[in-house]
């Protein structure tokens, strides 16, 4: 489904600010995999997403999605098949456009067979209403309102719906609940779970919440200093407790700290 082979990326090469963000990533996702991604700040998690989504071109390596080499494909072409959510709930929706227009945009850009001049039909509108109702936020009765009037949690839930309205080949969730209050975050997380499992979406999710990293999905990876340092799946993952994983997380961070300090001396 998704195959990354030896992907590397160094920013500001040859300057004092040189930073190796990805140091040879090999990652293989099967169809329907839901992988949670852990790692301290600067471990390269978001850079990994950037490489997959095409925000920048990797220095080496290849990215293959569903048998197609997308390593050099521009980001706007990839996003037809890759849904992406950011931490900032304001990033995923157009505030001056209505809920319906936002959904129409998401729907028409991802559908394979629409012309640039196609418009949404009554049937599409009914479909939007049904899908909005599944969020359980009452947004189906506010389709004519501009998205700018919604709360952060509502906007993030809407972004999630927009990203999955036409089932994407891959869904990238970059700490998409981190900016929400705990109750809303839980709600959005539950919605994520439901939507991902209903449509069998292949998904990568960055989180800092260790218990949910273990409870959500079927695989967990941990990153440090631009590398995948731990992979959990199946039985080992089931037997792993949050405490053990937290310990592993600390050990990895400590290693990188020691490296940092020794390099400084």
């Amino acid at each position, binding site marked *: 489904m998704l195959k990354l082979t030896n992907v590397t990326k160094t920013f500001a090469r040859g300057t004092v600010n040189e930073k190796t963000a990805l140091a040879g990533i090999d990652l293989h996702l099967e169809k329907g995999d839901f992988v949670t991604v852990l790692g301290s700040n600067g471990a390269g998690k978001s850079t990994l997403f950037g490489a997959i989504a095409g925000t920048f071109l990797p220095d080496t390596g290849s990215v293959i999605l569903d048998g197609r080499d997308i390593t050099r494909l521009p980001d706007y072409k990839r996003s037809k098949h890759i849904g992406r959510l950011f931490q900032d709930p304001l990033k995923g929706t157009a505030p001056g456009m209505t809920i319906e227009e936002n959904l129409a*945009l998401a729907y028409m850009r991802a559908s394979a067979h629409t012309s640039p001049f196609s418009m949404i039909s009554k049937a599409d509108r009914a479909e939007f209403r049904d899908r909005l109702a599944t969020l359980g936020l009452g947004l189906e009765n506010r389709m004519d309102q501009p998205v700018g009037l919604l709360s952060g949690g509502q906007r993030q839930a809407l972004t999630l719906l927009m990203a999955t309205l036409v089932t994407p080949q891959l869904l990238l969730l970059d700490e998409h609940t981190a900016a929400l209050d705990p109750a809303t975050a839980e709600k959005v997380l539950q919605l994520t779970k439901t939507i991902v499992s209903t449509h069998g979406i292949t998904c990568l999710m960055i989180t800092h919440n260790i218990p949910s990293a273990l409870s959500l999905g079927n695989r967990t990876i941990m990153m440090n200093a631009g590398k995948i340092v731990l992979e959990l799946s199946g039985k080992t993952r089931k037997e792993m407790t949050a405490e053990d994983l937290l310990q592993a997380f600390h050990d990895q961070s400590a290693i990188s700290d020691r490296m940092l300090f020794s390099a400084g001396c």
Partner: protein
Amino acid sequence: MISTAVILSALELGCIYALVALALFLSFRILNIADMTTDGSFTLGCAVSATIAVAGHPILALPVAMAAGATAGFVTAALQTRFRIPSILAGIITNTGLYTVNLAVMGFSSNVNMLKTPTLFSLLKPTLGAGFKLIPAALISILAGLLLAAFLKTRLGLSIRATGDNPDMVRASSINTAFTVTVGLCIANAMTALSGAVLAQYQKTADINMGTGMVIIGLASLIIGETILPKGKTLVKILGAILGSIVYRFIIAIALRLDLPSECLKLISAVIVALAIGLPALKAARKGEN
């Protein structure tokens, strides 16, 4: 004090200039780009229209003028998206270059006279009678407004709106912003040029300075329309732009009746635009103090 003839000509001019307000609605309000190409592409529309009308094709002149305007918009968009020149500067560069182009179109003369040339209006006079100027002018602006409203509901139209509304979102969506900006500026400048093309035939003359200050006049009309009509859907905003343009022409007609020298009008327009765009910031600052 104000005669029927004055009212009629204000309505006619309002409808013709409404196309510029619609163009700026697309570039300034929707794409969030202050398109400085406007002045030049308006004159380009005048020049192309006059030259082709003199050659004997007053109707053909209109689509050709639109194509010329779209080309000007394309140049500005290319400077902005391919060469990463800031949008305002990109417009000014195109506008400066257009001065020479416009002169060239008019055969390196600063004006073209159409006094004895058949125009769109003179062709329609036998069939339409007294409304031979107002009816085509109103039809063109209303048709342009309806087409624009319909276009903004299409996939491409929604993409253009999103480009101006949330660049962050657009970068993460399958929207090529270089493409949406280009399409938006081409359409906007095609409408501006159409406005110039119709005006040249209406006034039976084209002049190299006809477009000077057009961007400010268009913005003033747009803002007047936004003030008159309540906030609402796209169609309401589009009608507002047309209405605003007509009101602007009435304001000018009244100002001229009051013996205000016509040289003052540009200053008044500038003040209206500066105040209208600056007002929200002023209000916010006052609220902050209280």
